[in-house]
């Protein structure tokens, strides 16, 4: 049967199928429905576990949900805070999407973000000029800083074969030390003491005219430039990954590097640039945090945005379109957690809940694959009952 429906007869996938399909890791198919079912189940389990934890911490799950809700999406102020948190998460996640697509797993966004913030801070404090030019240059410099930092990993991987996961992770700790050094050295970025008391380990504040603008005034919804940059970048990247030659080659490289090489892809160039680009997005996130919310370089400025952004990409399975809502969800958890204090529940519980949610979203494809394999192995013939051997399944898996 060589029948292929023409363009006119192309069945459009229904929206629900598309969403479910896009959740499936790299292989949208009938398996996707099973995966979706398992995902719902896992999320339910995660939420149940979270409720249990809250109860053990002498809190009331209802109150906790209420606090999280109030702090994040109950009113425009909550939404504003949620969006402020979501922007850097989304930028980091976009970078992670690029690297993951190319099959290089960058987990050092936290460090790349720190370096980005540091470079951006340096430019913002030293460069003279009209506000919008300095802001642009500072953000671009932040991206360059993050890109250079992940570029070190790229260079090590493509010249010496050093594992990317290891180098990006370890470079994060070096980045933290570099920033510490910078904010402790008066000749670099340490603030000038205000006359009284010693200078603290942080930079001077960025002058007002260099801070990212927001649209809308409290108590109305405020949307910062960072959010706009992140959303625009999401749309552009989603289109490029899905439709462009670059996206095609990147996907090919990630799925089968050998075939990609046969098709003319130079892994060191394309994969290396993907790694640099992912670092650049993390660096840009650092710049946005610096100029948008914190305004001065502090060793803790990254505040786990790098790690959490990576988690956003994991949950979104490296799809920019899905990363957007996931980033908003994670942003909401962050802003909601600041309201937890009133309920008497420690706010780090939110981190635990977040981790449970990540697991709930990351585990299902694995479970689904295992389940499918089990079905293939044991599919019984209708007229004979399957042999009731309890130990059999485990053995079979060993053989596969």
């Amino acid at each position, binding site marked *: 049967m060589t029948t292929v429906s023409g363009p006119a007869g192309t069945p459009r996938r229904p929206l629900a199928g598309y969403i479910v399909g896009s959740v499936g890791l790299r*292989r949208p*198919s009938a398996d996707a429905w099973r995966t979706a079912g398992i995902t719902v189940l896992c999320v339910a389990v995660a939420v149940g576990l979270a409720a249990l934890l809250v109860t053990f911490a002498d809190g009331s799950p209802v109150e906790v949900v209420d606090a999280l809700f109030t702090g994040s999406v109950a009113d425009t102020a909550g939404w504003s805070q949620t969006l402020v948190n979501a922007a850097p998460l989304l930028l980091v996640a976009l970078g992670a999407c690029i690297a993951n697509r190319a099959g290089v797993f960058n987990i050092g966004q936290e460090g790349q973000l720190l370096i980005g913030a540091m470079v951006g801070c340096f430019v913002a404090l030293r460069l003279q000029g009209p506000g919008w030019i300095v802001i642009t240059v500072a953000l671009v410099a932040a991206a360059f800083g993050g890109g250079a930092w992940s570029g070190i990993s790229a260079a090590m991987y493509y010249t010496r074969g050093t594992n990317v996961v290891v180098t990006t992770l370890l470079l994060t700790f070096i980045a933290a030390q570099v920033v510490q050094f910078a904010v402790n050295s008066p000749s670099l970025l340490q603030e000038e003491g205000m006359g009284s008391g010693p200078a603290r380990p942080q930079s001077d504040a960025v002058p007002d005219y260099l801070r990212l603008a927001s649209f809308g005034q409290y108590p109305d919804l405020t949307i910062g430039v960072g959010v706009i940059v992140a959303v625009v970048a999401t749309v552009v990247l989603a289109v490029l990954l899905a439709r462009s030659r670059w996206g095609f080659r990147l996907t090919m490289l990630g799925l089968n590097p050998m075939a990609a090489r*046969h098709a003319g892809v130079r892994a060191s160039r394309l994969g290396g640039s993907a790694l640099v680009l992912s670092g650049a997005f993390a660096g840009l996130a650092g710049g946005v945090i610096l100029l948008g919310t914190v305004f001065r370089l502090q060793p803790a400025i990254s505040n786990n945005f790098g790690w959490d952004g990576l988690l956003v990409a994991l949950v979104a399975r490296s799809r920019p379109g899905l990363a957007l809502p996931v980033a908003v969800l994670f942003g909401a958890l962050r802003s909601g957690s600041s309201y937890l204090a009133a309920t008497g529940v420690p706010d780090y519980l939110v981190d635990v809940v977040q981790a449970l949610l990540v697991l709930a979203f990351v585990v299902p494809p694995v479970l689904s694959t295992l389940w499918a394999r089990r079905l293939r192995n044991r599919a*019984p013939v209708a007229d004979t009952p399957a042999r009731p051997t309890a130990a059999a399944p485990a053995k079979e898996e060993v053989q596969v």
Partner: protein
Amino acid sequence: MSHDRARTDGPAPALELRGISKRYGPVVACDAVDLTVQRGEVHGLLGENGAGKSTLMKVLLGLVHADAGEILRDGARVEVHTPLQAAELGLGMVHQHFSLIEPLTVWENVALGEPGRVDRNTICADVEAVGARYGLAVDPTATVERLSAGERQRVELIKALRRDPKVLVLDEPTSVLTIAESAALFEVLRTAVAAEGRGVILISHKLAEITAATDVVSVLRRGRLAFHCRTADTSAPELARQMVGRDVSLRAEGAALGLVVTDDPAKHLTPVLAGGLGAVPAEPPAPEASADVPGTAALALHGLCVAGPDGRTLLDHLDLEVATGEIVALYGVEGNGQATLGDLLSGLMAPDAGEVRVDGRPVSLDRPGALHHAGVGVIPEDRHRSGVVLDMSVADNLVMTDLRRFSGRLLMRRAQIRAQAEELVERFAIRTPSVDAPLRTLSGGNQQRVVLARELSANPVVLVAAQPTHGLDVGAIEDMYARLREAAASGVAVLLISTELEEVMALASRIAVISSGRITGVLDVADASPQRLGMLVGGEAA
């Protein structure tokens, strides 16, 4: 159990399988298969790829659980749930692809998987004793990675025989052996069977081996036992017919089934015996332009040298030329540098020395895609490794080597890709539900057609086909042969890299033999005989 079994009254058979069924989802791999192996008998199990041979043996060895049926050893019903149980019951297996651990020594590999204390001296002595008894000499302290394919097979055999199996299963044992090594292997089997009363199951898709080395033969077709007979009472053409389920055409399928075509007017198919008694084809099957046509060769390889990461020589000053419109076969036993050459011509690696010229122009080999742009199409040996991206669509796989043609400055032109894909699907008869289906969902033969369609659609000067029929069924093999001949007839220089003697004899006009990374000789097909090729394969000049 209605089949006549050629069973003698007397002791119960060493092994009996009754009504074994196994279903994978909608696919019935084995459908009520019966098989009886007497003591002292070599039982041939013949069938195409996917006929159910492997599944049946997996059931026997406890690797897979049957849905129905029973297994009897010496007349007593037994349950086999794990390979360990199978070993305790005296069932041993030599796998098609060696299950040896390369960095370990021979004796360590032999001891692997045995319960109890490991004593180096005992095992070494055992290895030598077993080796002496069957004529399988191998140094027990040698490291496996330094052994040749033939020696590794000996290690596998020693490992199986040392456990004193009552029934020994050999899965495609000759795929990595030279003709001489195959003959030696069958000698060993005779000794093990006749003198010691073991049963042997010999799995093969090569008719020649079955007719030469077995006492009884069973043919599986689509999961069912299609035929069962004493080997002496049947003939190769009959077996071929039973295997495929219809009469086989002389050329393509004959070669696919391991037969060399003779010019006998009675159209007899003559199997090439492992000992080298086969007939010489009198008529060169490919009447296309011969090698001595003047002008530059379409593909010229000069002095290619490649050393492996461990310093081993993979290619050793390899020279080869292929002219426009001819099919040149590179024949040799697996593991003599063919894979390296295939990788090199796919653009996956650069040689340490030497050059590749296409149409007389040298190609810079360290630029990815350079060979493709110079006009070299490749059907790789392992298509899943470098030929296709399984998780991308059929359409994407059909255009992925020529992205510039199908994209603007930035974005891909989807309509154009679809049109091209649909045209190729039509032209190459690729069976797919849609061009948007993931390539993974296609059968092996159709995946191979996707590769062929893509590589030929670029109008190549040269087509390199490395083991293009591995793992395909007879219909797909026939189709592949026709396409390769067609390509050559339309002026493409075809380099066929193959380990199948019958395949190269059927397709090529010249045969180059590779051994240890060197070309040991180039013969016109008219001058080639299994004996001469066999000597070249072993590294001797013919």
